Every structure is written in structure tokens, then in C-alpha cells.
């Protein structure tokens, strides 16, 4: 027999209670795992780079900017590369099948995003070989069951052709995976010249301009230079880092995040109370045995450690179940959710389980510390 087997024997003494507590911990950690996967996933503002700038119209991100701004920014000494995007707001087949698509200049986009999106020279060559070529992110391709070579039609809610059709036809020339598992690959990249030639309004405009500063130039220093450049033009700009831009975007769903955080906090507090109550009940039931163990020479600290160890085992099993189920949920969930279950999520689940075990076990362990052998022996 070892201390470990003593802990396990204590736990299986009341199997139902242990099982219920483990499942309570697991449930809370499943909620935590899924929310963390969502927050650390493709929708996270943390994916935005601090060293890239996003230029939008000062009057609002929905207001387009003249294409000439792109050339003016590219001419600045502090700028290494520049790209622009134009949102198409498209769907495939039916309106609820939303397919995010943006039109870009292929070479410019490659210079700025090529590394992040893992765009290979072969992929770029195929992409630019025809004007109606598009690159599709892996996640979107999986959802739509698209393959390279497929002809697809995307309907835009923003633009129509000169003939009045909102349908734009494309050929898929490549599927990109992104550099990391957290990279958003749930969209389509089309070519600006193709769209610009077909659309009937906002011709020669772009929605956003992405700027990569020259090495040694701080993005924060470059932002006012760009804004000053267009301060007195017909299209004044607002320049911010990509992360700030995404954070502003994410603020739109901040309420949802707040609610999710509140739900998470409440569920964690609930499970903390469950753990504390369960272990306190276990210590209460075993007061006499604890008193006997102290009387026969087991130290106070050793007994408190045994109680804490029981909590650690409960939370450890709960964490393993929680992590496993979270992984399964993320694996079968719609990629559009952008959930990513990576080592960071596992680390956070483990850290939370340790915290729950520590906080949940401390009061029962203190209670075990205080058990007086003389009082318990007298109670018989």
C-alpha cells in the first residue's frame, strides 16, 4: 500500500459521490475548453499582427477609399509593402450560406500576407494565370466541399455586374492552409482587377489597405504619417495596427464574450463550491478515522496532503475528461466557429484544474488539520 493507493481507496469508498464530483468538474472544464477554444481561435484579435497597419476610411470601415491611396502609401519610404482588400459580402447558392470573400491584388497580397497564409509560388502562379481564379481557405473548402479546379458562383450582396447580375463566376486555383492552426482559412481570395472590371459601382475603390512598415519603423509611428497624408483629401483615413483593428471588430461581439465569460465564471464558482462541499463532507464523515491516523503517528501535514491529493485526483480526472470532450466538440464543430483546440487550451485547462483542486481542497484540508485525536477518540 502507498499513500496514492490510500487516496484512491478513499475515493472509491463513495463511488457515486466521486463520480458526480468528477463529472461536475468535467462539465465546467468542457465549457471552459470550448469557450477558450473559441477565444483563442481564428476570431481572436490576438491573430492580428502588431507590426502591420490597417487603413480604413475615417468615416467608417464600410466607406471605401480611392485606389490611388494605395499607390500614395506604397510610395512612402517607411513602407515596405502594401496591399488592399475589397469585401464582396457573398454567399453560395442561398443567402444563409455566407462565404466571406475579398478581392485583392495578388502580388501585393502575397507580399503582405503570403507568409501568414502559406501561399506557395506555385499556388500564386496558378492564381494569377487567370483573372477569375480564386484561392479558397481550407476551412471554407471543407464546408463547401470544394476542390481545386471547381467552378463556383458567388453572389454578392454589395455589387452587381453591368448587366444587373449579382453572380460572379470563379475557378478555384488553390486551397491555402495558413501558417498555423489558428490562422483563419474560412474565406475566399479573389482578384481585384476581375471584380473591379465587372462591378458597376465603387469602381477603383478599396475597403481597407494593409501596410507592412519597413524594418526598423514602428507601426505606431507610421500610422499618423499615413493619416496626415490624406488629412485634407476627399478620403481621410484612420490607421491602426491590425490587432487594434480586429479588437475594434471584436468589440462588436464583446457583449457575447462578456456573457460567455459570466457563464464561465458562474459555472467555475459552482463547481468550486461542489468540490469544497464534497471534500468537506468526506472529511466530516472520516473525522474519527483521521483522529485515529493522527493518534497512530501520521502527521497533520500528511493527512492534509491526503485530503488535498483526493481533490487533485478528482480535478485531474475531470480535466482529462473535460479536455477530451472539448477536443471532440471542437473537432466536430463547424469550422466557421473558428474554434481551435491547441496546446494553449490544454495548458489552460490543466492550470484551471490545478486552481480548482487547490481552492476546492484547501478548506477541507484545513478542516482535517484541525481534527483533534483526543476529541475524536473520546467521542467513541
Amino acid at each position, binding site marked *: *500500500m502507498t499513500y496514492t493507493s490510500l487516496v484512491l481507496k478513499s475515493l472509491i469508498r463513495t463511488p457515486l459521490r466521486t463520480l458526480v464530483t468528477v463529472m461536475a468538474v468535467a462539465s465546467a472544464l468542457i465549457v471552459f475548453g470550448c469557450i477558450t477554444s473559441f477565444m483563442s481561435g481564428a476570431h481572436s484579435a490576438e491573430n492580428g499582427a502588431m507590426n502591420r497597419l490597417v487603413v480604413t476610411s475615417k468615416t467608417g470601415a464600410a466607406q471605401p477609399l480611392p485606389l490611388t491611396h494605395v499607390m500614395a502609401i506604397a510610395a512612402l519610404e517607411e513602407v515596405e509593402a502594401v496591399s488592399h482588400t475589397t469585401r464582396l459580402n457573398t454567399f453560395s447558392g442561398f443567402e444563409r450560406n455566407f462565404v466571406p470573400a475579398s478581392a485583392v491584388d495578388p502580388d501585393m497580397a502575397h507580399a503582405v500576407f503570403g507568409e501568414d497564409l502559406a501561399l506557395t509560388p506555385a499556388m500564386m502562379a496558378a492564381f494569377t494565370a487567370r483573372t477569375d481564379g480564386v484561392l479558397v481557405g481550407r476551412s471554407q473548402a471543407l464546408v463547401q466541399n470544394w476542390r481545386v479546379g471547381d467552378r463556383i458562383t458567388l453572389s454578392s450582396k454589395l455589387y452587381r455586374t453591368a448587366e444587373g447580375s449579382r453572380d460572379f463566376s470563379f475557378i478555384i486555383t488553390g486551397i491555402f492552409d495558413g501558417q498555423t492552426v489558428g490562422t483563419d482559412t474560412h474565406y475566399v481570395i479573389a482578384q481585384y482587377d476581375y471584380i473591379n472590371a465587372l462591378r458597376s459601382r465603387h469602381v477603383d475603390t478599396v475597403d481597407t489597405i494593409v501596410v507592412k512598415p519597413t524594418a526598423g519603423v514602428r507601426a505606431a509611428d507610421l500610422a499618423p504619417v499615413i493619416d496626415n497624408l490624406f488629412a485634407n483629401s476627399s478620403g481621410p483615413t484612420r490607421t491602426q495596427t491590425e490587432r487594434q483593428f480586429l479588437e475594434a471588430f471584436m468589440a462588436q461581439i464583446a457583449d457575447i464574450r462578456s456573457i460567455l465569460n459570466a457563464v464561465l465564471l458562474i459555472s467555475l464558482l459552482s463547481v468550486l463550491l461542489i468540490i469544497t462541499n464534497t471534500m468537506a463532507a468526506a472529511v466530516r464523515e472520516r473525522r474519527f478515522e483521521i483522529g485515529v491516523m493522527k493518534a497512530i503517528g501520521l502527521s497533520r501535514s500528511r493527512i492534509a496532503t491526503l485530503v488535498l491529493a483526493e481533490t487533485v485526483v478528482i480535478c485531474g480526472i475531470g480535466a482529462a475528461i473535460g479536455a477530451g470532450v472539448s477536443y471532440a466538440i471542437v473537432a466536430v464543430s463547424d469550422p466557421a466557429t473558428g474554434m481551435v483546440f491547441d496546446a494553449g487550451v490544454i495548458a489552460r485547462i490543466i492550470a484551471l484544474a490545478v486552481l480548482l483542486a487547490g481552492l476546492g481542497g484547501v478548506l477541507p484540508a484545513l478542516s482535517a488539520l484541525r481534527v483533534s485525536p483526543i476529541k475524536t477518540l*473520546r467521542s467513541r
Partner: protein
Amino acid sequence: MKHFSIAPLISLTDVCKSYRAGRSEIAIFQDLTLSIDAGEFVAIMGPSGSGKSTLLNMLSGIDRPDSGRIRAGETDLSLATERELTRWRAEHLGLVFQFYNLLPNLTAAQNIELPLLKRPLGRSARAERVRVALELVGLADRGTHRPAMMSGGQLQRVGIARAIVTDPSVLICDEPTGDLDRRSATEILELLRFMQVSQGKTIIMVTHDPAAAAYASRVLHLDKGELVPARQEMAE
């Protein structure tokens, strides 16, 4: 297992002990002085409330005197910290309880092994000690039995095995036969005497039973916290 271990001489000098009951204080002992030699089998008798259990608790180091000194060998129990007392109990003392106080979810062997967990012994060394202890109490074939599957006499044998497995020099027994029938009680008392005679243990036993006390080499009579001559205690 070591035979004839060098036992501490236990001595109480001017020990006072009282308990608070509400606003009043009840004196249990006033200037109690007593000594027990190594290898003795001492029985302590007396009516309820005479201080027998309090005396045992103080000798076990789980209770402290208000004043006076209790020495066990080189250790002054009245001055020791709680940690030192715990260590002293683990190293020098075996406790046998009236109601056995075994952990119900552990087997007999595991209950016996419990005090050994603190020792720097490997698993096989612990198993060997448990085997020897089980053999000494005549339960070699009952190691895998849980307390619920055993009789009162067998449970007390397991209790004694747990007390001796660490090879302590002193066994403190709180009415070890109080919950047993006459036959089982006799077996347990024979076992305790065997521990004294062949293992060299110092045995201090509280009992109400004169037949049990007859196994001791010395009988102390307590009444109202004082040691009294046998006849006076018996008369009351």
C-alpha cells in the same frame, strides 16, 4: 522484528490536569507522580471518571498536562511540540483501542501497514513486517480480509498487529478486551503477555476487568485522579 528493545522509562512527576466544563474547572489530577519501568505490564483500574483515559492520553502524547513533567526515555513529552509528539508516537508507541478503530475500507494487512507509511521502508520491507505482525497475532491467513468480515477477537488482533508493526517499545491499550467475549478476551490478554515476555514490550493497559488486570505484573488503582491502595478503590 527486534526482541527486547531498549524501552524508555516512563515517569510522571507532579502532573496536574483539569478540564473546563462550562464556567467551572474540573480537576482530574493534582500532583500525580508515577513511574513505569521498561518491560513492565501495568494495568490501570478505576471507576469511570477516575482519570484512566486522561492518563493514557497523556502517556500517549495526544494530551498534555497543565503542569508537571512526563518523561519517556530521553523525551520530555510535556515540553515536546505537536510534531515531536507525533514523531514520538510513530517511533516508540503502539496504541490498542477498545473498539479497534480500524479503517473499514482497508484490508487487515493494509490497516496494519498504515503506521509504516511514514517510515523510509520499501514496499517489500513493509510487506514483510506486516506478514510477521500478522503471524505474531495468529492471523497469517487473514491479511486480505476487511474488518467487516472479521470477529471482535480477530479485529482486536489486527489492532494489536497494527500497534506492534513499527516495533514500538511501549504498547498502550485502552480497554482492549472491553468489547470482547471471555474467550476472545483471554486470547488477547495472552497475546499481550506474550508481547511483554517474549518481545520485551512495556505494556500499559486500562481495564475495568480484574481478570484482565491479573495478567499484569503491576496494577495501579486510580480514584478521583489519585493512586489509591487496591482495597480502597475496590471498596468503592
